[in-house]
Each structure stands twice: as structure tokens, then as C-alpha cells.
């Protein structure tokens, strides 16, 4: 191998090393993006296990998968009227 061939070989190896380093950098960046998306998805979907202990009074947006619907107390069809009689059928009071 003459000196010029040896120099070209050295340059080729250096370029190959730089390409490999670039691929590693790109793969790392892509992996970071995938990991960030995965973490975001995971934390946006609270699991049942995250409700494992009681240590906070801050409400979350989840709570129930069913049974939480209907966010108001409903009015009666007809409100109570003043009675003509003072003799009640029944008493409502504290118990």
C-alpha cells in the first residue's frame, strides 16, 4: 500500500465513523421523540392503579367510568304547595 492509498483508506474510515455517529444521533433523537409521545399518552390516560392511595384533595377530570354522568340536581315536576289542611300525613325532619 502506497502512502496515498493509506491516506485515502484513513479518510474513508473517518467518514464511515462520522456517518455511524450521525446515525446514532438521529436514532437517539427519534427514540426521544417516541418516548416523549409514549409518556404523554400514558399520563394522559390515568390508570386505575394511580388511584391506589388517598393523599390529595385535588379533583381530577376522571373519577368514574360510569355513574358520573348527570351533573346537576333535578327539580321536581311540581314544587310543594301550601296545604289547605294543617293535619299532615307524615313529617319530614331530621333523623
Amino acid at each position, binding site marked *: 500500500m502506497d502512502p496515498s492509498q493509506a491516506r485515502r483508506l484513513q479518510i474513508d474510515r473517518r467518514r464511515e465513523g462520522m456517518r455511524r455517529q450521525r446515525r446514532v444521533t438521529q436514532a437517539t433523537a427519534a427514540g426521544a421523540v417516541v418516548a416523549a409521545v409514549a409518556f404523554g399518552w400514558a399520563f394522559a390516560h390515568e390508570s*386505575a392503579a394511580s*388511584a*391506589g*392511595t*388517598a*393523599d*390529595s*384533595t*385535588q*379533583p*381530577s377530570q*376522571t*373519577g*368514574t*367510568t*360510569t*355513574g*358520573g*354522568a*348527570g*351533573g*346537576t*340536581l*333535578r*327539580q*321536581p*315536576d*311540581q*314544587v*310543594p*304547595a*301550601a*296545604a*289547605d*289542611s*294543617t*293535619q*299532615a*300525613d*307524615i*313529617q*319530614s*325532619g*331530621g*333523623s
Partner: protein
Amino acid sequence: MRGLAARVAPARAAFPALGSTAVLLVTDERALPEAERVLRDELAAIDAACSRFRPDSEIMRLAAHAGRAAPVSPLLAAALAEALRVARATGGLVDPTVGQSMLDLGYDRDFAALDRDRPDPVHPRPAPGWWRIMLDAEAGEVLVPRGVLLDLGATAKAYAADRAADRIARAAGGLGVLVSIGGDLATAGPSPDGGWLVGVGDDHRAAAPGDPVVAVTSGGLATSSVTQRSWRRAGRTVHHIVDPRTGDVPEPVWRTVSVAARSCVDANAAATAAVVLGRAAPAWLAGLGLAARLVGHDATTVTATAVTVAGWPAPGGAR
């Protein structure tokens, strides 16, 4: 008012239930025995599912599954769903996770067996929060976090009243039904002429002079009062209505609140929330369009001023 002169008083049955009194009224006396059987059946089922004072109740056995999903019966799932619905609707003023707060205040057994004067101090803690209960009613599963004690309390009684009244009325077409559990009442079917005549006061067991009478033709009517189920703890009077935000009894603004709503559960939740909410309660109830009567107190006397909101009959008609 229709035909009041010819009004026939409804047939009546009453018996002890759920640490209180159950009263059943029906518009046809012949239907009373079967209606009472259905009511007793419903109350027994609710007690077995929801009682905080029975170690063998389904809700107490959930403690063995703390922090993990546990299977629940359709009845307990439905009762929990109702409790969570009203917790959401009241912004957490009525919260089923106040069980530990109740224990801390000393309400740790059936009220009849309670030590009414304990000297040891109380260190109230806020309720963990209803939003931590993960319920899948369709799958029949619930996850109660570790450290959370459930207390469905009056919500379960009101739910039992709603269920029983509806079931009795459906079984006997055309029958008017009123079910009261501890003074919180649900109606179903047609009301008697002139409506169900309901006295409203501090105590469901007996009317006091001046208690008004109102005519109810549909839905539910419930009363929450701090004059009942109260006891002494560390030198002060406490009672069974807890502010979930503090874990302590609420500021003494309202002595007794009565509310009419579509169901007994909703009426009970609104009445209890109003006691907890204090001074802001009349505006809150009016905003919801719920007819209500609020009686204030100054913590030591029974002198009170009644406030009525959202269509509740003006004072008058008192006995």
C-alpha cells in the same frame, strides 16, 4: 286544592329500619300488605349492601380489596353511582369518602350505641375525595383507594326510598305511594286528592308547634338537620353532617334545611349540601331552581328565621 273535604287519609305502615324509621303510605289500603313486603325487602337489601355498621355488609367487605378493583353487586354499584353523581352535582359538598371523618368525629357505630360524650380531642382531616373512587357500574367493579372509607349514609337511605316507591307503584298500577326513611321521602304514582300532606320541621318523629304543612304531588322531599344525631366531643357539640373540605362539622349557619326535588336522593343531597355550604346556600339552591326552606340558628337557641327559595310556599299554614 281538589276535593279536600272528601279526602281519605292514606293507609299507613311504619317500622324501624336502617337505624331510623320507615313509613309507608299508599292510596289503597288493600295494597298495603304487599307494598310493605316490597319495602322491607328493599330496605334489607340496601342494609346488606351499604351499611357502615355491619361488618358483613358488602361495602365494609370492600376494605379487603383496598387499592384494587373489586366486584360489586348491581345494587351497590347503583348506590355508588348515585352517590358519585350527587357528589359531582354538589361540587363535592356531599361526598361518599367522608367515612374516616365520621369515625374521627366519633360516629363509629349505630347511633343508638354511640358514646355521646367523649373527652378526647378530634383532629379533622379533609375527605380524600369522591373523584378517587373508580366505578364501572356496567362491569360491576369498583376501585376504592387504600385509606378511603366509604359512607353512603343518607344517600343510600334516600336511594332506598326512591327504589321502593317506584317498585311498589309499578307493581300495583294506579297506586299512589309515599316512602319515608327517617323523614326523607319519595313519592310515586298519583298523589291523593290535595297531595301528600307533609309537615316540615327539625324532627321527623314528631311535629313541633309552628311546623308548616306543604302538599307534595311528585318527586321527593328531604330534610337535613343538625338538631338530630348530635353528640359531645372534646367539649363541643358535633353531629352527623360533615363538611368534606375540612372533615369537621360545618359552620353553624343552618339548623334545618328542607328541599323538594325530582327524587329523594336529589332532595337529600341538596339539603345536606345546603347545611354544609352555609350562608351561600339560598343563592345556590335558587340557582338550581330547587324549592327549599332553610332555618337558621345561632348555635344556642332555637329561635330561627325561615328562608324560603325557588317557589317554596311562603310561611303560613303552620300547625
